[in-house]
């Protein structure tokens, strides 16, 4: 891995992220658009013809310095009722399709579309032949362009009329042609990428004085063009790192945050694809921090040696010319195996005195370590969700890394590297609801996975103060603490197993005698009563609302002894383990504070449950059913997740006591 130790990259963190749902009216996005990554406007497919409808309109965009800029742009009238958006919709088609673009012009002057890199474009309708292409007349004129999506790649579409003004005013967008070969940029396996990590960076620049002149009908000298706003996907930093469809930027639907997890060359993980388009008039030297990017194509053509092999090049700075497109693959191989505990990044955290802590706008993550969040002063709100690491990507023409000459801003965004496997968090507290702690603490369930530290839970015991007869249907015990308060459960006195059928939670239980291969028998006063199950749960906190892809990991074993430090092996009659998660939305869940709470739902297969777990550590990962939001607490339980481990061992003929040794209890998830 080539990484830049630019500490600012770790100190920088997200501003308050918009959590508004995507694709609601007013977002200018098609339904189902992802929050991060390239958003395609679907268009209409009929046979092999892919039709897109575009209309030119005027509107405003907002800049981070509080300005608003008058723009001309394209929108799709069939998406979000033709909500104004800048830049124009991302048109995605498949190689071999016939693309038709129908343009309706709502400007006060004629306009047209050109498609650089496409051949054999035919125009129909339209008012007249313009200088570069057939034009649609002013005030609702129309024209259609048709061409074959002959070659996969990243392309620009833009105005072909009065280009010095119209393109500068914002009449541009990206055209993506995908090859028929799945998950490749150019059909060649060397251009394979992870389809969930496909990013578009459409660069542009603006001189607000031109926009003001066009809006107000005043003079502007093109020869004095002086660009002051620089955008990626129509936004300037830090707006670029907001989600797609952020309600804060209703006319600028496309975010530019690049989000990856560490790739791993030995695990065949695929790189991200970064499609870059320069729709501006300046050549932009773009500088990615974090790792080199691998250029695979220019202007929609793969870079290939004369012999046919890939002729890719590595860059930590690449100038993208006006009107050009370039595609890059991005890997972030964690070849150094950074680990917050055993192999921390050699980056000293800044002294607290050197960073500002106040309210919810803290711009320090709490730790520079990937996958680990350090300690912050009490009451401090961090914007770093789970120890992810941020690198700035920006134009290295540093006047472009500004908003009207104020930095940082402009043509910049962040590369966010999430910890391996996503956000990872371990239980911060435990509660035993059916059993008793033998040894260990919650920290034994944290980090590391396979280690030698265990959180050990024994079955609960109590005593019978008086003697028991063989026919007795009810028994009184010294204490019910630690025994289940509801549900039928098994207990053992001497060698007899009986089932508690009533009186749970009190000290007088109705029992069904002589079960599981044993016979009803007499027992002396003071006999020990042992439960044949352990129930305990771990609590997690700080899981952000809006997190997705939640997974539960539990690793542990069961031992045949309840005393001593060494695990007594169990090879037969294995204890049966059931792992449950609290669904906070179930009526009566009430915080899932007892083993009997209706909120506990069994995690669905795979692996199926109950699962036999003996004296060898078993690690399992479950994915809860449905939306992750059901399992993330709100209100009093804000950000909490609870996971319950129930283990029992009463199967005939050896319903003997055991202890549960937990090794790891953790969650992974994608933070918003």
């Amino acid at each position: 891995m080539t990484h830049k130790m630019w500490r600012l990259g770790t100190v920088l963190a997200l501003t308050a992220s918009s959590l508004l749902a995507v694709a609601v009216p007013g977002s200018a996005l098609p339904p189902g658009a992802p929050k991060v990554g390239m958003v395609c406007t679907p268009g209409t497919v009929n046979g092999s013809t892919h039709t897109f409808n575009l209309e030119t309109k005027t509107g405003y965009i907002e800049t981070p310095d509080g300005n608003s800029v008058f723009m001309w742009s394209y929108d799709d009238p069939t998406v979000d009722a033709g909500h104004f958006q800048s830049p124009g919709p991302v048109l995605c088609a498949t190689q071999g399709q016939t693309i038709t673009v129908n343009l309706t012009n709502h400007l006060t002057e004629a306009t047209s579309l050109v498609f650089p890199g496409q051949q054999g474009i035919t125009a129909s309708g339209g008012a007249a032949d313009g200088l570069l292409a057939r034009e649609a007349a002013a005030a609702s004129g129309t024209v259609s362009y048709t061409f074959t999506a002959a070659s996969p790649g990243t392309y620009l579409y833009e105005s072909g009329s009065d280009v010095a003004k119209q393109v500068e005013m914002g009449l541009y967008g990206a055209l993506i042609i995908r090859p028929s070969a799945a998950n490749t940029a150019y059909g060649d396996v060397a251009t394979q990428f992870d389809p969930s990590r496909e990013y578009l960076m459409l660069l542009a620049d603006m001189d607000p004085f031109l926009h003001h002149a066009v809006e107000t009908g005043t003079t502007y000298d093109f020869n004095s063009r002086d660009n002051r706003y620089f955008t990626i996907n129509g936004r300037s930093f830090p707006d670029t790192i907001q989600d797609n469809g952020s309600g804060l930027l209703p006319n600028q639907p496309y975010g530019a945050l690049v989000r990856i997890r560490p790739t791993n060359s030995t695990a065949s993980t695929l790189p991200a694809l970064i499609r870059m388009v320069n729709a501006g008039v300046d050549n932009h030297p773009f500088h990615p921090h974090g790792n080199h990017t691998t250029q695979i194509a220019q202007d929609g053509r793969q870079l290939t040696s004369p012999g046919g092999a890939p002729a890719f090049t590595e860059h930590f700075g690449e100038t993208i010319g006006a009107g050009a497109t370039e595609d890059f693959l991005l890997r972030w191989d964690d070849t150094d195996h950074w680990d917050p505990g055993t192999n921390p990044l050699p980056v000293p955290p800044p002294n607290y005195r050197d960073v500002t802590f106040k309210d919810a706008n803290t711009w320090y993550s709490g730790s520079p370590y990937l996958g680990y969040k350090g300690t912050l002063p009490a009451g401090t709100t961090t914007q770093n969700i789970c120890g992810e690491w941020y690198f700035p990507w920006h134009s290295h023409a540093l006047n472009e890394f500004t908003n009207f000459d104020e930095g940082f801003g402009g043509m910049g965004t962040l590369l966010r590297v999430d910890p391996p496997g996503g956000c990872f968090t371990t239980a911060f507290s435990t509660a035993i609801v059916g059993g008793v702690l033998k040894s260990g603490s919650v920290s034994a369930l944290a980090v590391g996975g396979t280690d030698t530290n265990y959180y050990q839970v024994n079955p609960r015991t109590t005593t019978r103060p008086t003697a028991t007869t063989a026919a007795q249907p009810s028994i009184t015990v010294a204490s019910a603490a630690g025994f289940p308060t509801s549900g039928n459960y098994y207990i053992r006195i001497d060698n007899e197993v009986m089932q508690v059928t009533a009186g749970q939670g009190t000290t007088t239980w109705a029992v069904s005698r002589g079960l599981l291969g044993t016979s009803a028998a007499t027992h002396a006063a003071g006999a020990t009563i042992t439960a044949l199950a352990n129930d305990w749960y771990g609590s997690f906190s700080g899981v952000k609302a809006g997190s997705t892809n939640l997974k539960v990991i539990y690793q542990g074993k069961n031992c045949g002894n309840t005393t001593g430090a060494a695990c007594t092996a169990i090879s037969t009659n294995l204890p049966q383990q059931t792992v449950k998660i609290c669904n906070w939305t179930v009526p009566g869940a009430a915080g899932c504070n007892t083993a009997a709470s209706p909120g506990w739902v069994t995690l669905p297969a795979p692996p199926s449950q109950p699962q036999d777990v003996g004296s060898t550590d078993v690690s399992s990962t479950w994915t809860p059913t449905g939306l992750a939001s059901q399992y993330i607490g709100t209100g009093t339980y804000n950000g909490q997740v609870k996971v319950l481990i129930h283990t029992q061992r009463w199967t005939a003929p050896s319903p003997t006591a055991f202890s549960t040794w937990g090794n790891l209890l953790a969650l992974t998830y994608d933070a918003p």
Partner: protein
Amino acid sequence: MRALAARSMRKSRALLIVAVTAAAFTLANSSASAAPVTITLCAKPATATLTGAVSVPIWGFGLGSCATATASLPGPQLVVNEGDTVTVNITNALPAGHTLTFEIPGVTFNASATDVAAGSTGTVSFTASAPGTYLYQAGGGEGRQAAMGLGGALIVNSLTGGQAYDTQATVVLGAVDPNFNAAPDTFDMYSYRATYWLINGKAYPDTAGITATAGQRVLLRYVNAGFDNTSMALLGLHEHVVARDAHLLNNPFDANAETIPAGATEDAIATMPAGAAPSTHGFPLYNRQLHVTNGDQTAPNPVPATGGGMLTFIHP
């Protein structure tokens, strides 16, 4: 006798250079061979007429003695063959005090070029050892001489037959700020602001078209004699970029918006498609930094323009 015959042939070839303009022409070099070539240039003031009948004073190179030479913007295209031993005599007829240094980036002169004072003549000689597209220009004057127009294209033709193109065109890129040209000695370069953007010294619609028919392979020899890294967009086809700064690329690539750095040259081959061109004028080749206007732009709500500046078309 053989030597004499060779010499006369040389002279006729020197005259041929005069006939070659920046327009496209077809190569027929199979019988060419390396030979001594002498080129005589004069650097002198002249007047260029830009679009809109705007007359602008320039300093330019002209072929021949200063008595007869006509300086042009850009200077005349010089064409030699690979292996030629070339002697360039430069007479400096610029206003007094303007010493000129002749330079061809990428070409090593036999002896270091010496400054040529106004009113005197200097000589450089070199062997055209590598074929390709070069820029020749006047060094010195803190760039003012080049900005006044003292630059042009040098083509070194390969002696190898069977080149991968059928026709060729030289595309010399440059720009003019008439206010600078009016006062080249005193103008504050901080205020330099080009208002005319030129291909081979002309702005659209005065630019010469590039002629090529469907299926023909056009070698576009870009020479950036200007001050700006210039991105040239090509609509309706890709060009295959084969060389930069007169060196073949190990990995040629395809482009349709290629940036030619200031002072650099680039060779690209565009194969003309059979289908219709995007425009009724042909396949547009234009400055994608959108320097496609001519002169001052002072109209309100900038009125729709009909195109100008660094724009031309490739057409049959």
